[in-house]
């Protein structure tokens, strides 16, 4: 049972990460290779906000900035803000006047620069060693045993997932979400209708970074440690694959795809070493299958399992219906 709780917790966090990728990749049609950098910023951010001041000793060599000793929930909010702010800065540069593939290159550069700074300067967030030593969030109040706490954190992550889902659904249906999809489908037409492409894209990009950082903060609070080896910028392809398999720009589909690509496949490939003598084959096989997933989906079912729903604007349909009788009368009189 503990196994399913672990898989479920990581699955819920991964689904949040996929929902964040879905904003730039699904709604706005951008390839954001810096996404894992925002996840890392969220994770590091939550940790340096929650941990007390660093006291590097021989047993805990890790040193880091801040160390504000904030409670759990304000740290989550702070970490999310860090991610959004970082995405705003990178986006302001990358989205200014670059084409889609150049955006990908610039964001990859940004992520690699951040990786090299974070891993080589050990004053910021502990360098290659990373940060550790977080205590289980909220458990000083709850005082739960290991099993009870794991159920509690699973519940917390599921609630967080639901929250992110509801907020994003709301934004997706808002005028902002609609304009964004218009930009994705035909940016020139959207610009001709008076949409500010740069501002729309930038806001979407920052929103994606914030969601990624939120997921990263939850992840760090689950692992209680974070280091540069925990992330590889290319693995955003697996998140994109989850989005693609489930259904681009369809939040429910994205969650399903995330479960398939990032929970079920890695758990199944965990069994591969039992079949062969190669003990390290599992994680690599999961990545290979996940990355192949995006290729297969793009080739045979670009819409994903659940296609993007056509959002009907009820207020407008209603007003159209209300005026239609007079229109038909006018048409008759003309005809």
């Amino acid at each position, binding site marked *: 049972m503990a196994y399913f709780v672990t898989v479920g917790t990581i699955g819920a966090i991964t689904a949040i990460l996929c929902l964040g990728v879905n904003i730039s990749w699904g709604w706005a049609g951008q390839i954001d290779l810096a996404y894992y950098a925002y996840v890392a910023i969220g994770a590091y951010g939550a940790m340096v906000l929650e941990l007390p001041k660093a006291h590097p000793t021989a047993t805990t060599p890790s040193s880091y900035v801040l160390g504000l000793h904030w409670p759990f929930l304000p740290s989550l909010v702070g970490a999310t803000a860090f991610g959004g702010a970082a995405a705003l800065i990178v986006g302001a540069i990358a989205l200014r006047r670059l084409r889609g593939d150049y955006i990908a290159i610039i964001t990859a550069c940004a992520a690699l620069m951040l990786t090299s700074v974070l891993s080589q300067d050990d004053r910021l967030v502990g360098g290659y060693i990373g940060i550790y030593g977080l205590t289980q969030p909220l458990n000083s109040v709850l005082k739960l045993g290991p099993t009870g706490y794991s159920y509690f954190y699973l519940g917390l992550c599921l609630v967080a997932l639901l929250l992110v889902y509801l907020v994003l659904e709301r934004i997706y249906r808002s005028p902002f979400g609609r304009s964004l999809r218009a930009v994705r489908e035909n940016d020139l037409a959207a610009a001709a209708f008076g949409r500010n492409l740069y501002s729309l894209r930038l806001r979407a990009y920052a929103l994606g970074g914030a969601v990624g950082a939120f997921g990263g903060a939850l992840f760090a609070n689950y692992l209680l440690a974070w280091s540069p080896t925990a992330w590889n910028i290319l693995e955003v392809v697996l998140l994109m694959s989850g989005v693609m398999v489930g259904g681009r720009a369809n939040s429910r589909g994205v969650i399903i795809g995330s479960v398939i690509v990032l929970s079920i496949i890695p758990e199944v490939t965990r069994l591969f070493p039992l079949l062969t003598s190669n003990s390290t084959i599992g994680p690599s*096989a999961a990545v290979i299958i996940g990355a192949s997933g995006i290729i297969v989906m*793009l080739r045979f079912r670009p819409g994903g399992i659940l296609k993007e729903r056509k959002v009907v604007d009820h207020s407008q349909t209603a007003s159209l219906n209300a005026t239609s009788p007079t229109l038909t009368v006018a048409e008759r009189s003309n005809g």
Partner: protein
Amino acid sequence: MNHFMLGIGFGLVTAAIVVLSTVALSLQFSVTRTINFAHGELMTVGAYAGYLVAQHTSNLLPQALAAVAAGAALGWILNWGLLRPFTRRGASKLVLFVLTVATALIVQNLLQIGFGGSYVNYHYSVGTAYHVGPFLWTSLNIVTMAVAAVILISLHLMISRSRFGKAQRAVADDLMLARTTGIAAERIISLTWVLDGGIAGLAGMFLALQVGTFTPTLGFSYLLVIFSAAIVGGIGRMYGAMVGSLVIGIVMEVSANYINPSYKETMAFLILVVVLLFRPQGIVPALSEG
């Protein structure tokens, strides 16, 4: 001053490796108009092929041939097996780009399964270091630069003089028009990918020899350095690529004297970001050769 000149000397060696990979990328881009994020993996498979052959012979020539063959094979597979089914259906550039990103991840993990994730040692008996003017070079450095020079000159002759080069230029200019005039465009594109892979594979082998130890992420860690060189020179322009590689190679090695050497790739990315923002067409004025 002495350190500065030594830095320039190492920069020339780095530039020689970068330029091989960058002209390959630029040639492929100008003919196919696809940004290949798996270009680093062409280099990585070349490095591993050279490493495998080095277990049997210390002679550099068979190692180089294996590296070329491995890179060329991957280039061919990438085009024929992956991109072509999509380009035939008129897939968008962004879709093609995502495909190459996915391929990069797949190849890295296949190599990880095959060779493990830890560093492998790949050396060539460097021999003594020679003082050439103000520079200090090993025999491997000199071989690297000589090979790069020979390949650049051959590529120049091929593109400007041969029928194949002429056809390549035609496809690069206008694919439809080239097809209409009876050029077997699919074959030209396919051969371009093979050529691209072969040269990139060779560059990967030299890079691996230069750094001595490597993992399946060797090529990927260098990919954006290659992109920097290509874009600084103006992407898709072969002669610009040469200038871009020189700039990037020398800046990387000279800066390593003054800042933490592990930031030298970061320098390349910084140049790339600045160039993309202010001169996305590259720093080299456009020449009619394309």
